[in-house]
């Protein structure tokens, strides 16, 4: 009972913290990888307390699998966007009028791609191991 109540209280904050680490990564410590792990930890905590069935209802495994691919795609297509706009692969300068703003947008997109894939992979690993008995 205590676990359920506390867990319900904690999970939104864990997710919020994940988003903070994600989008604050270019100013302070953090970034996509750490944020992805924290976000996945929130889902895994939910799964541990309320059962894997409920966790799978919240984030269906098929959707998670699509997210794994989507994160990598976001990363790669950000790189290719630079290439199409006339610079080298992964050159963010050309993503906006101002090179500094371009770098900013570039790294945000890249890190978001990393975060998505890392979170999705962590959740998939958890589902794979926890769902083994059935």
């Amino acid at each position, binding site marked *: 009972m205590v676990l359920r109540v506390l867990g319900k209280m904690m999970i939104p904050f864990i997710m919020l913290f994940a988003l903070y680490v994600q989008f604050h990564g270019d100013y302070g410590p953090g970034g996509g990888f750490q944020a992805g792990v924290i976000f996945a930890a929130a889902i895994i905590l939910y799964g541990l307390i309320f059962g894997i069935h409920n966790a799978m209802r919240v984030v269906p495994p098929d959707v998670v699998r*699509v997210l794994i691919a989507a994160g990598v795609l976001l990363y*790669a297509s950000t790189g290719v966007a630079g290439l199409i706009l006339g610079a080298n692969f992964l050159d963010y300068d050309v993503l906006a009028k101002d090179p500094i703003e371009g770098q900013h947008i570039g790294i945000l997109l890249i890190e978001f791609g990393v975060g998505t894939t890392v979170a999705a992979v962590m959740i998939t690993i958890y589902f794979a191991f926890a769902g083994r008995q059935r």
Partner: protein
Amino acid sequence: MIFQSITQHLPILQVVLPLIAAPLCVLLRRPALSWLFALAVTWASFAISIALFIQLEHVGTIVYELGGWPAPWGIEYRIGTTSAIVLVVVSGIGSVVMPFAKASVTAEIEPARHYLFYTCYLLCLCGLLGVVATGDAFNLFVFLEISSLSSYVLIGMGRDRRALTAAFQYLIVGTIGATSIVIGIGLLYLVTGSLNMADIATRLPEPGTNRTVLVAFAFLGLGAALKLALFPLHVWLPNVYTYAPSAVTAFLAATATKVGVYILLRFIFTVFGAGFAFTAMPLDTMLMALAVAAMFAASAIAIFENNVKRMLAYSSVAQIGYMVLGIGFATVGGVAAGLIHLFNHALMKGGLFMALGCIFLRAGSVRREAMAGIARTMPWTMAAFVLGGLSLIGVPLTVGFISKLYLIRAAFEAGLWPFGVLVVLSSLLAVAYVWRVVETAYFREPSTEAARATEAPLSMLLPTWVLIGACVYFGIDAELTVDTAFRAATSLLGAQP
């Protein structure tokens, strides 16, 4: 204008194309659709590698800066003649195996997993190409891990349950190899403060003055030797080749160990320099000793092997010995012979393993007893196997002959004629193991499996014959391979005075 900008970005497209295609394959999901998509991507990447190869005729090295950051700070891709050869081999084999894979994968892997198979295949291709294209030491490690991790999955998909233990064994050994490579890179970074390979080479202290460099050299050598399955670190290889799905065996046998050889070459010649590796350190003696041991021990084991796939796996270990022997000579001729054999062996082993894939599809087994008399029911497949086998022995008019000719010539030029004799003697062992299969397949009464078998489908037979045909073509007209290999070897050895 657009065409020009594409040619300018070829080095990165070579690697990024399969990287983007892999997650798209996950999204496609339908077996036939993901196969078609993967096929298009592998062919496109083969076209890119050929375009790069042609581009190199005009410029010495192609350099590409990722993100527009200049070299020692940013990651740069650096493609020279050696890397161009390996790129063509890897992407070429990757694109020939793809049409073959359709029927073979359908028979050996459950349909629900097909899209994952093609995803991993593309990732593995991306990793192998990345290792070769990059000029950054840490980037090399990352791509090596991409290719290794995806190949563990590919191997584990084999129908035989022992595929899982083979994949696990490879995972352990491969991880040890990758770890020692990353330790070596870390130590080099400690000494030089750089991760760019060309930059490291200029910053390395004089040989013999820094012990950290020695340790880094040892770790990198060990890691590369594990990855290229140099005798006696080859133990993972036979199980992997035997139990992996046929298409995976054909692909990995022709590419993965070759990329291992490339890593060895890259670190010896362009990072440490031949002077350090061969004069200050006794690497040449070690390589030659281990290569000769591989040539004889692995060939001898191959003779007594009843599973033909495993027999060819041991033969691969022996053939890797020839490549390493050439490198061990530490002369232009020797390194060129190693590179020639790298190219040629990819053709013949790719073709041979694909022929075995055909037999596995129809007869359900590649044990020698099951293959008795199979030449009557599968004449085209067995004819391909015989030609590939002849090439393995080194019969004139096949690529194997060209390889051995230049290897023996290099031995004599280097004043190491006993090694030339050893190459000929070890070829006799190849005659023995190839003959055992040929004798069984042609002159025995058909086994029940062989009698039931029918000729393999054209989609598998054709790619097999493309590689076997290339074996004969490059065996007759070797000018292109030999010229390019000598150019590559000259630039590798010329990098250091």
